[in-house]
């Protein structure tokens, strides 16, 4: 495969991963742990938002992130003609 194209594909993959992992860290480490106390004044249903992210929300976001990543990469693989 053309090295320029391989490099462009890889850079694109890294950009996509960077974006998704930023969301991953935001919901778990930031909302669920670092900001859990300030976020305790807002509620989702009857649970404080920080607690909800720590015990429910971050897990839902993780699942969605993986499927969206897989879907996005399907498109990028096709675009760069490296799909299987």
């Amino acid at each position: 495969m053309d090295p320029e194209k391989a490099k462009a594909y890889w850079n694109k993959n890294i950009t996509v991963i960077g974006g998704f992992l930023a969301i991953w860290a935001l919901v778990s480490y930031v909302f669920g742990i670092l900001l859990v106390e300030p976020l305790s004044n807002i509620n989702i249903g009857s649970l404080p938002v920080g607690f909800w992210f720590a015990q429910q929300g971050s897990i839902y976001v993780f699942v969605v992130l993986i499927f969206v990543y897989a879907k996005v990469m399907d498109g990028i693989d096709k675009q760069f003609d490296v799909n299987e």
Partner: protein
Amino acid sequence: MDFNSPEFWTFVLVILSFGIYIYIGYMNRVRDTRGFYVAGQGVPAIANGAATAADWMSAASFISMAGLISGMGYDGAVYLMGWTGGYVLLAMLLAPYLRKFGKYTVPDFIGDRYYSNTARTVAAVAAIFVSFTYVAGQMRGVGIVFGRFVGISVELGVVIGMVIVAFFAVIGGMKGITWTQAAQYCVLILAYLIPAIAIALLLTGNPIPQLAFTFSDITQRLGTLQVDLGFKEFVQPFQGKSQLDILFITIALMVGTAGLPHVIVRFYTVPTVRAARYSAGWALLFIALLYTTAPAIAVFARYNLLTTLTGAEAQPDGSFVMNPVSADELRAENPWIPKWEAPGLLRMEDKDGDGVITVAPGNAFENKAVGDPTPVDVSRNEVYIDADIIVLSTPEVAGLPAIIIGLVAAGGLAAALSTASGLLLVISSSVSHDIYYRLIDPKADEKRRLLVGRLMILIAVIIAGIFGIFPPAFVGEVVAFAFGLAAASFFPAIILGIFDKRSNNYGAIAGMLTGLIFTSVYIVLERFMGVPFKDILGPAYISSQGIGTIGAILNFTVMFVVSRATAAPPQEIQDLVESVRIPRGSGEASAAH
């Protein structure tokens, strides 16, 4: 025969489920090493997802986790986020590229990528150590579930578990294990969700545990009740651990998950790179079904236990009036109390002689758990509740029929057996493939390699069984070890192996050894030698569970610096890195092997 007794249904469902596993194992018997180590790389993404979920969720996830969260409140989030978040890392940073690499084991990748048999040996030994520490607890778990539900001794239970695992793992290898695990996932998730739905409906009127947990007022009611009894609010963070420690434990568990060999190898079994990505999604979806239900069960069961034990009655204004009664009255009204008192999972005693049972924060008795020799400070609390009761007693507390109690037993066994079989395969492949074939006898033919693989899995089952029957004193501490070491050794070496072309053999060996040694020394000093790091480090204290995070950072740093101070890897290794980054060609890569 009593068709309404839990014992009858437990017997029927356990025998039936074991029969299914043996049948599946036999139907998927294998004849070549590719089938034995990576299930012929023909497992569909969704089936691999179910197998990964069963592989991942152990007896501890199934039986103990909800109970632990029930006692920890918010702090239980370390397990919920820590044991799920790693799949995001797997899906994006590891699984697709390792599948493209296409070989059989984690030490395969490390040995080939770092063109070093020293690195391969370090990885193989670490994989064996991590998996053995983990599997000892699983075999014990099989015995305990048998003991609690079927009424046979723990030792006999371990032996039965060994025979079942040995059967489908020896003849079916990874292929047999994969399809058995997919079946085991179905058993364990049904066994977990049915009682959860029943208790959610009973306490909140909403049958979906996650929705009942979030939208009903049950958690607020539990909070009020806890404060009335002198506990902290259930949702209040950092009651038992500092914010810093919670952060580091969560990171260590996530990174450790992504570095555990028995999880990583599951992604070698799918047909394509694309399937590896989706498979991680399915795995986490299946895991999330249990992991988002667990905190709901934790709240429901704790509310139920506390109101039962204190006789608390909710008033229209939201406050509680307590009507404590004597231990004998509690036993007479709740048949599950004497049942769980017998094996030592529950203990109550009117210590102050006031005629009623008092529930309060702190330890009720001089020994935290029955059989635990460590003395602890005692409060006015008069009830000891083992964490395992939360899940085990839910069907009875919710008044479900005997068949459901049998199903929970079959589910607990499915969780323990599926995790044990995945770990045993890693141990077998590390010895027979990485050490025997790659290092000792590279000329061994296919037939001989397969025989050695089968023999190793049999030996591993026997050793794991002996650990289960005579548990070494450290079994309770091994989870910290397994995750800490996986985080500090494999994860950085694999990530840099894919994402940093400049990483070389010297960097990998130096980095892995630094991470392994730092992490093990810290855990041994704190857990086994009793060094009071908590007092020494003060607010900067990080517990043994979280120290793997520092180990991983050290490994990354050392590897990066040493690699740049020494010669670049040879061209063919740089080409290998280029090739694992591109999805196309995964089929050819494995066919050429």
